[in-house]
């Protein structure tokens, strides 16, 4: 047993924390969240130069060779100091499935471009039902010569509006078991028939509606095998749920630290409010919530990094972290009082992150079934 991080991991954490704190202050976070693009192209380039875009890719794809566990640590720190943009969509939702399942030709074409920050990608899974189950995939891809013709509407596709490629999950066969007829296509976002619009929302994310109308995709753009896409999607969503949990823990830690500092400074009744027991209880509850989740996430991450099956652990991590992050922001707001309820303050940034983090890749309730099943129920 060893609960310590390595020296390299600690350095990685520190460099991310320092960089984001310096380059993406909360004033910029608000500006980016309010902008249409939702990210800063300059920071994007710089982060690529730092080797972050290809964090888990091997050398041959100009990557930095870090492990999946390191990716989890990376996003935890990205959640601590928020930095909006298509990083999650590109690295986790797209980089991982391409690295793990695409053929060599596609990998050597796409991965180096991700590493150097030249392209942005995202994955389009959810449709009208807004869930992650194979029977909800109605978007169809029908073979015509060397091409497939895609038709359908995807919803809640984060960052599609700035993406160069969209990994589209489409139905290629009507089978008794709905997951047997799903295929993953890499679609150039500029292809005629792709229509993208932003969905007005209250978080810092940029969810989009992506309509595919007779969109032609060459057969060589299939990631993995025909009709074998659901396995890839499921694996990616699971990893995404885990990385998102890590990001939420970072956010919860960020919330607590912000509130801690304030509780020492804010004076009411001639005392810092942090000296009131009611306020202290809130902090103790935050600490318990966060640290309980943190080990669930690290456990799931270390299993996954070793290539072990961690469906139950991931479901536990996501189920609990989404709930706790929301609760931690509720308490954080309570400690800030009225000032935290303003747009000008930073507290609401975490509040919004807790909402988007919790509802994406399956909220608490939708994880419970997986846990019960893994317990034999």
């Amino acid at each position, binding site marked *: 047993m060893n609960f310590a991080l390595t020296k390299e991991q600690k350095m990685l954490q520190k460099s991310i924390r320092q960089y984001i704190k310096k380059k993406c202050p909360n004033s910029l976070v608000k500006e980016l969240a309010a902008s249409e693009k939702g990210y800063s192209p300059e920071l994007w380039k710089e982060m690529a130069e730092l080797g972050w875009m290809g964090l888990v890719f091997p050398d041959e794809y100009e990557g930095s060779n870090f492990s999946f566990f390191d990716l989890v640590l990376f996003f935890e720190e990205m959640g601590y100091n928020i930095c909006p943009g298509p990083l999650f969509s590109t690295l986790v939702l797209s980089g991982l499935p391409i690295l793990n399942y695409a053929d060599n030709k596609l990998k050597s074409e796409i991965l180096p471009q991700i590493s150097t920050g030249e392209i942005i990608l995202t994955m389009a899974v959810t449709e009208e039902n807004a869930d992650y189950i194979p029977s909800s995939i109605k978007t169809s891809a029908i073979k015509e010569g060397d091409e497939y013709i895609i038709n359908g509407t995807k919803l809640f596709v984060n960052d599609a509006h700035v993406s160069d490629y969209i990994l589209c999950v489409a139905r290629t066969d009507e089978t008794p078991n709905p997951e047997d007829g799903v295929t993953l296509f890499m679609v150039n976002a500029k292809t005629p028939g792709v229509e993208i619009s932003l969905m007005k*929302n*209250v*978080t810092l*994310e940029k969810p989009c509606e992506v309509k595919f109308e007779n969109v032609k995709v060459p057969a060589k753009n299939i990631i993995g095998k025909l009709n074998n896409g659901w396995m890839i999607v499921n694996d990616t969503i699971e990893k995404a749920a885990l990385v998102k949990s890590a990001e939420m823990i970072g956010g919860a830690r960020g919330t607590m630290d912000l509130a801690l500092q304030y509780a020492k400074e804010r004076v*009411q009744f001639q005392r810092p409010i942090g000296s009131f027991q009611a306020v202290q209880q809130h902090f103790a509850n935050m600490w318990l919530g966060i640290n309980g989740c943190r080990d669930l996430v690290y456990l799931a991450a270390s299993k996954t990094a070793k290539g072990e099956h961690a469906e139950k652990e991931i479901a536990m991590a996501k189920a609990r972290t989404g709930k706790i992050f929301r609760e931690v922001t509720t308490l954080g*707001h*309570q400690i800030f009082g*009225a000032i935290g309820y303003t747009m000008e303050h930073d507290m*609401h940034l975490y509040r919004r992150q807790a909402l988007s983090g919790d509802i994406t890749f399956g909220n608490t309730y*939708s994880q419970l079934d997986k846990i019960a099943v893994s317990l034999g129920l």
Partner: protein
Amino acid sequence: MDFEFTEEELAFREEVENFARSEMPREIEEKAYLWPGGYGTLPIFEKEFEEFCRNFFLKLGKKGWLSLGWPEKYGGVNSIVKQAIVDDVLSYHRAPCAHAATSIVAPTLMRFGSDEMNNIWMPGIINGTTSFWLGYSEPDVGSDLGSVKTTAVKDGSEYVVNGQKIWSSGAHVTDYCWLLAKTDDSSKHKGMSLFIVDNNTPGVTIKPITNIAGIDSFNEVFFDDVRVPEKNLVGEKNNGFYYVMSALEHERIVIGFGTFRRILDELTQYVKEKKKAVGNTREYEEARNIIALMAIEVEVLKSFFWRTVWMMDNGHKANIEASALKLFCSELGVSLSNSAVDILGLYGQIDKGTKWTQFGGRAGIGYLDSISGPIGAGASEIQRVLIATRGLGLPRG
């Protein structure tokens, strides 16, 4: 014991219901955010509904429905139950039904104001033309209201006010400030007085603050040598803090009870429709349970609400009950928004007015706005201390 309304009360409910149906445009009812228990999404704060709300108050005034709980002399019928029926029915329709003038200013004036003062101010409040904002909080003065720093210094027949107020809900859409200011430096709580200050007095500067939901609901207000006539002093000098405290009971029963019922109904309806569209899924089973749990809490709130109203109507002290009511309803506002977000999932983040909007776009906004409930008008921590010390007799820490 009897939990039912009397025949007369039922008939009155019906009357208010009919009024709401004819006077509350469906479009506003459907579009207004108005999250239960929150302080930042009242229709009057949404720019597009501001004018409608002002006119609506005039209609309520004409009906005599702003003053039902008060004595005949002040346009009322001495029935807090009737007042509460108006609150319940109108808030279900997301219609405006109470504000600081009716819930705080008038009850205080009737108890402590001179006849001369009441003759000036009460008619406008009763007919809905006069509106107030509360000038209590300051940048350094939140929970500890006893430490107000804004000063009012006597100069001839006037007081000269200097200082700053903050979180002043509606100061930008009302006419007068109900100001708590320091009038005697030698004593803490006993050195404060209440004044009525016209927003248009030279030296008053009102700057809106945008809240978490993106709405300008409250303000910073600066007072620079603002001259207030002596006759605008409420009651006796240096008694202001006690007047403020004794009005809290009245403020705390204005909870917009109908907004809670409405959200529960709409969430239930949403889940029913979802079932029709998608069938009997696992999500449906979970949503049912979430709603059933919320229905229990709304039922509890209902009893807390009507019991407190009944107590006040029958001359019982309801200090603790009013604290409990405020505490419970504001925390229920948070739970309801959590439930809505849990049930709506990814749709919970979508705002109103889009083709993807579900549940009126209220889940995400409610999730943001609801956190104001346990903070404003006496934070939950303070309410709990009040219940434990004043209510249960525990020693003060």
